[in-house]
Each structure stands twice: as C-alpha cells, then as structure tokens.
C-alpha cells in the first residue's frame, strides 16, 4: 500500500503521531419513534441535519428487504406493505420478554423467546433480536454522520430514566454491535437538562416532562452553579404518543383487526398523522371518520392524567410541591399536544419551557455530555449526578425484599449490608438480586442469582456475610458477597436475565461481519468520490490557467480522462473510480510537473528552477 505524499524534515523533526485526527464523540437519542445524532462543534451542540430525507430525525423503523436493510422513512413506508419484515418501536422490546410488552404492540409481530428469555422477531427470511434491530438504527445514524464527520467511534446514548438493568445492558450491546464505544448511557431527561443548563446557565429546581412516542419520563432536577443533581425520577416505560394513536383509533380498531395486521398498521399510521394535525387544527378525518380535537382530548385524558400521577409521585420523592419548581422543560414530540401543555401548566401553575426544540433537546444534551467526557480539558465544574431509577435489593427469608440501594440514590454508588445464616451449620447462602419497589420478591424483577459456598458451619445467626452492591455510572450493577471469617467471596456482574449473554453478543457480532464489509465498501466509495471531485476541480482549474503548456494531443488525453472520471464518479464501484483517478493522474503528471516549474520560475523572478539545482 502506498503512503500518502510526504515531505522531508530536518533531523529529529519527524512529528510523533500519537493519534489520527479524531472525529468527535457524538450524542445519540435512540428513541422509540425517532432517533437523532448530535455533536459539539465550536462549543455548541448541534444536531446532524439531513439524516433522513432532509430531516434531522431518523424514524426508528427497520425493514428487512431482500438483501438489504432499510432504516428510517424508507423502512416506515415499507411497514404497510411488508408488516412482517418491518420493525417499529423496537425500543419497547429492549431487554424484555414478549409477555412484558403491551399486547397491542406485541401482536403486530411474530415473536419467539430467545435463548435468554428475551424477545426475538421472526421475519420472512430470518429472525433477529431487539438488540440487533437497534444496532441497525445506530449504524444508520453512524454511517450517515460519517460522510460529514469522518469515522465515529465513541458515543453517549440516552435511555429513559426508568430503564432497568436489562434494558440498559441491551442498549449498550446495541451500541457495541454498531461499532460504537458507548462512553456512557445517559438518562434522557438528564440530557435535556444538560442542554438547557449549559445553554442558559439556569439555577433552581426544574422538572423535565418527556412524553415521546413510547415512553414517559419525569425528572426533578436541581441546578446550582452549573452542578446538576437529579432529585427524583419517575415515569412509565409503556406510555407515549403511540398510546394516543391507539386511543384515537380505538373505535375503528376492531374492524381493522378483522382485516389483518396490514389494516392495523395502516390505521395506526393514519391515526398518528391525524393526531399531529389536531395539535394545530380543531378537526380532521381518520379513514373517513370525522374526529375533533375535543374527541382526541377526551380519549387521551386518562393517559395524560396518568403522567400527572407520575409527576406528583416524583415531586413527593423529592419532597417538593409543584410550586417549588422554578421551570418545567418539555421534551418529546407528544408535548406538542395542546392538552398536554395545558395540563402540565395547570399542575405546576406556570407555562412550561420549550425554547429548545423538544425533538432535539435530548440528543443535544447527549452531545454535550459526550464532549465533556472526551474533551482534553474536561470541565470539572460540570458534574452530573444521576440517580438510580429503581431500588436494588436481595431476597431474604420468606421471599421478602431487603432493599440495599434505594431508588433515586445518586450513582455511581455502592452500599453494603451484613447478612447472616438462618440455619445451624448452614454453609451456603443463596443470593438473589432483585430490582423494584415492591416488598415481595414475586412482585419484583429478578436480576441474578448466585450461591456463596464455603461458609464455616456455625450456629444459625453467627456467620457474617457482607453483601455489597456497586452501581457504576451507567447504572449497571455488580454484587459481591464476602464471608467475614474466611474472606471467601464471590462477585457477579449483573448479567440481566433479559439481556443478551456474552455468547449471544459474540454470535451477532460475528454475523455482522457481513455488514462490516459493506460498511467499509460504502466508506471507500465515499472517499474515492470525494477524491475524484477534488482532482476534477484541480484539473479543470489548471487547464484554464496553464493550458498553454500543453500540446493539443496531451490536452486531448487529459480531457478524455476528465470525461471518463466524471462518468466514473456516477458508478457505485470504488475500484472503477480509483482506476479513473489514476488514469487522470498519470496522463496529467507531465503537465503537473510543468505547472510546478512555471510556479517556481515565477516565484524566483523568472530564473529557471534548474539553475538552482
């Protein structure tokens, strides 16, 4: 392989190349409905414009066509025709078993339980997992951004604050599968606050109300002199604009279901459009039925009320009253619904803030965080404290949960508690780690189970076993049990029971090599095109400026190679373009030398360059 063209330097002056020029770490809002990517440029976060058909938003829809994978609007358009090869709202399935997904969504797909209980989609010619589908979305964002930003390797990805361990792990796996180093998972409302906080230098207590397509999050944040503290989080992983669509379509749903999944998807897509129109207009038609804004409002009032219930709970967790909140930040497309704005304003007794585009604010905040994590002179004054969304605990005798780390505790964090044996001579302790707010193990989510063996046989209640829970900044958990006398210990990194196992991740990584190749091809093609553009421009410029140095036959050769290269750039084959570039380079190399000599002559006041040799 050829090196780039180099120049001679003085002895010892060869620059040390520590790193290649790096492209920025990006922030990604991996939404249920739409995904966006942003990065910080010149100290300001901005969204990557024109990601998908002119919009900064990439619909989080993936469609598997013959031999290709479509993402975004193109995939959404295929959803109606090929419902069984198209996946929307994949975020609903992340780290979830099929029976944990709402039935209305679940029945749109043919599902199977995967190796570890996680849902898998059966498609026409393959089956795939939520992690792999999400990776397609990330990969699409990544490759579309790479044409502007160069290779992207690091990202901060946002997740709903309510995401549990399994869902967070699944999101991280998707990032890894897409070839991204996930610097951090950031709670979406926290990201929004970061975007606002840094832009405005605000102080005080803020509520972030995020109502997207599939999820609702409420966070209570305190901003003091550039330090953010999340005081409380709450929400609902199964409530969003999709549910508004379902509510609006309700009266027509039975009929659609009788006609099959195609009709259901069609009805839901039209319901969404009508709902969005009703944010601006008093009435519209849904498949011929006239619906009014009043009717929509009546249908979604219980859902909006449900979000307000979560808001009140979060305020209570933070020991605040609605009037203690200095500002309310609106995030997510569904906060454009007038009823939502009204209800939120009523509850807090003030108009909410929406000066940053509610669609972009999360991605912008994630970009700010990515920049903070990678900037050489990382700003120490912006410290971000996140909180744990759900309590983490252990099963104790009788199926009761003992909480070790309570929800809304700031992370990273660790906490330990000492346990003992309940039977004489007991030499093993069953450690069952659970997550949730309920008192009974049966009502919480089981995260992991392991057995600590080798406890010295002692009378009941004499052994001392310290159990430590440590939560890292991504809210991922490791649990260590240590017997005090012998020091024997055992640690588990929580392998969420609904995430992919390492082997599964490896397997999909391997199967994605096929992709890696086409990704590389796409990138090579792109860079050949850029190079071709540059050289064509240079050639044309020199023909005009120094064309007199050429014999007619030489000029003809160069011009025909220019024409050939122009044609080649329209081809999708990097090799063809490369050959045409080389041909033009070759035919113009004598010309280039003469142009250079003429330049030198002019610089030296008319002497021939060879006089100085």
């Amino acid at each position, binding site marked *: *392989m*050829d*090196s*780039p*063209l*180099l*120049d*001679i*330097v*003085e*002895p*010892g*002056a*060869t620059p*040390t*190349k*520590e*790193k*290649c*020029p790096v492209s920025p770490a990006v922030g990604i809002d991996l939404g249920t409905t739409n995904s966006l990517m942003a990065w910080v440029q010149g100290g300001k976060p901005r969204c990557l414009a024109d990601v998908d058909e002119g919009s900064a938003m990439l619909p989080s829809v993936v469609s598997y066509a013959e031999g290709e994978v479509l993402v975004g609007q193109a995939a959404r358009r295929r959803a109606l025709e090929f419902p069984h090869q198209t996946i929307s709202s994949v975020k609903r399935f992340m780290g979830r078993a099929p029976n944990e997904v709402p039935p209305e969504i679940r029945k749109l797909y043919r599902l199977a339980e995967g190796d570890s209980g996680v849902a898998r989609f059966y498609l026409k010619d393959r089956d795939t997992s939520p992690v792999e589908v999400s990776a397609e979305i990330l990969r699409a964002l990544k490759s579309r951004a790479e044409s502007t930003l*160069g*290779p992207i390797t690091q990202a901060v990805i946002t997740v709903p604050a309510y995401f549990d361990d399994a869902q967070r792990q699944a999101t991280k796996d998707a990032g890894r599968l897409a070839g991204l180093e996930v610097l951090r998972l950031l709670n979406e409302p926290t990201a929004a606050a970061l975007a606002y906080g840094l832009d405005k230098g605000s102080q005080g207590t803020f509520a972030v109300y995020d109502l997207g397509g599939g999820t609702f999050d409420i966070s209570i944040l305190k901003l003091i002199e550039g330090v953010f503290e999340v005081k409380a989080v709450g929400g609902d992983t199964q409530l969003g604009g999709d549910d508004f669509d379902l509510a609006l379509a309700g009266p027509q749903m039975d009929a659609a279901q009788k006609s099959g999944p195609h009709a259901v998807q069609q009805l839901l897509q039209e319901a969404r459009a009508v709902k969005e129109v009703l944010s601006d207009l008093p009435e519209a038609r849904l498949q011929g039925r006239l619906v009014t804004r009043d009717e929509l409002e009546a249908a979604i009032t219980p859902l909006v009320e449900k979000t307000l219930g979560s808001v009140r709970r979060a305020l209570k967790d933070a020991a605040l009253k609605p009037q203690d909140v200095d500002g309310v930040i609106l995030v997510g497309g569904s906060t454009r619904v007038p009823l939502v704005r009204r209800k939120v304003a009523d509850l807090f007794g003030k108009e909410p803030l929406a000066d940053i585009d509610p669609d972009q604010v999360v991605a912008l905040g994630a970009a700010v965080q990515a920049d903070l994590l990678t900037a050489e002179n990382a700003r120490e004054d912006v410290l971000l404290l996140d909180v744990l969304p759900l309590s983490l605990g252990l099963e104790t005798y009788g199926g009761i949960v003992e909480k070790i780390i309570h929800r809304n505790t700031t992370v990273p964090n660790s906490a330990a508690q000492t346990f003992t044996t309940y039977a004489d001579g007991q030499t093993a302790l069953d450690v069952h780690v659970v997550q949730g707010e309920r008192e009974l193990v049966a009502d919480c989510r089981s995260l992991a189970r392991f057995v600590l063996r080798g406890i010295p046989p002692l009378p009941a209640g004499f052994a001392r076993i310290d159990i430590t829970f440590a939560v890292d900044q991504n809210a991922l958990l490791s649990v260590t049990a240590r017997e005090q006398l012998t020091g024997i210990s055992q640690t588990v990194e929580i392998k969420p029971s609904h995430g992919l196992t390492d082997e599964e991740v490896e397997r999909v990584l391997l199967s994605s090599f096929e992709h890696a190749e086409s990704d590389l091809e796409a990138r090579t093609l792109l860079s050949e095109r850029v190079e071709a553009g*540059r*050289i064509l421009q*240079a*050639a044309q410029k*020199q023909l005009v400026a120094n064309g007199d140095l050429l014999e007619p036959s030489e000029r003809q050769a160069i011009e025909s190679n220019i024409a050939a290269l122009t044609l080649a750039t329209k081809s999708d084959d990097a090799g063809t373009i490369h050959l045409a570039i080389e041909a*033009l*380079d070759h035919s*113009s*190399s004598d*010309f*280039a*030398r003469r*142009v*250079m000599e003429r330049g030198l002559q002019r610089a030296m006041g008319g002497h021939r*360059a060879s006089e*100085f*040799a």
Partner: protein
Amino acid sequence: MAITVTVQAAEQIKKKLAARAQTTAQSGLRIGVKGGGCSGLSYVIEFADAPRAHDRVIEVDGVKVYVDPKSAIYLDGTVFDFETKLLQSGFVFKNPKVKSACGCGESFTPAV
C-alpha cells in the same frame, strides 16, 4: 529484495539538499520507520548530515539515502519515489508489506 530509490526521488532530494545551508558532501536523506501512530508504525523522512553506525547506504545519481537496519526490514521491497500530481507533490513509500493503514494513511501495520 531491497529498497529502491527512483531517479525522480533522487532528483528531488538533490534539489532539497542544495537548498539547505548545512548540507555537506556527507549529507543525504534518512528514510525509515518508527513506532507511533494509531496503527503502530509511521514513516520517517529526514535530512541526515552523516551516516550512523550500521546504516545501509543507497546511492542513486550521487545522492545518499541512509536506512537503519531495523527500518530496512520493514522497508524491504519498498520503492521510494517522488510523485507530482495535480493536487500535490511529495515523496511516497510504495511498500508491499503494508496491508493496512489508518484513516489518515500516515501510520500503518506491516504484514508479518
């Protein structure tokens, strides 16, 4: 195999040497590789006013090119050339041992 310095490269080296005040009869060019760069190694092209012990010396058209023995292993088979293109001109290592290079092309991983 060996390292080849083309006549075009020699001609340019000669010009560049002539333009330097420090240049003496011993002066030449040092080419080689050194550690660093994201892909492991990167190229060196420096003026050299005297050879070092164990250097290999390549003479083309009266121009001396020095290569240290370790670099010579990595550069075996390489053609060291000078290219003038419409966009840019400069020296180039055409190294058959390089199988991959980083994004900026300046550092590389040799195939062993």
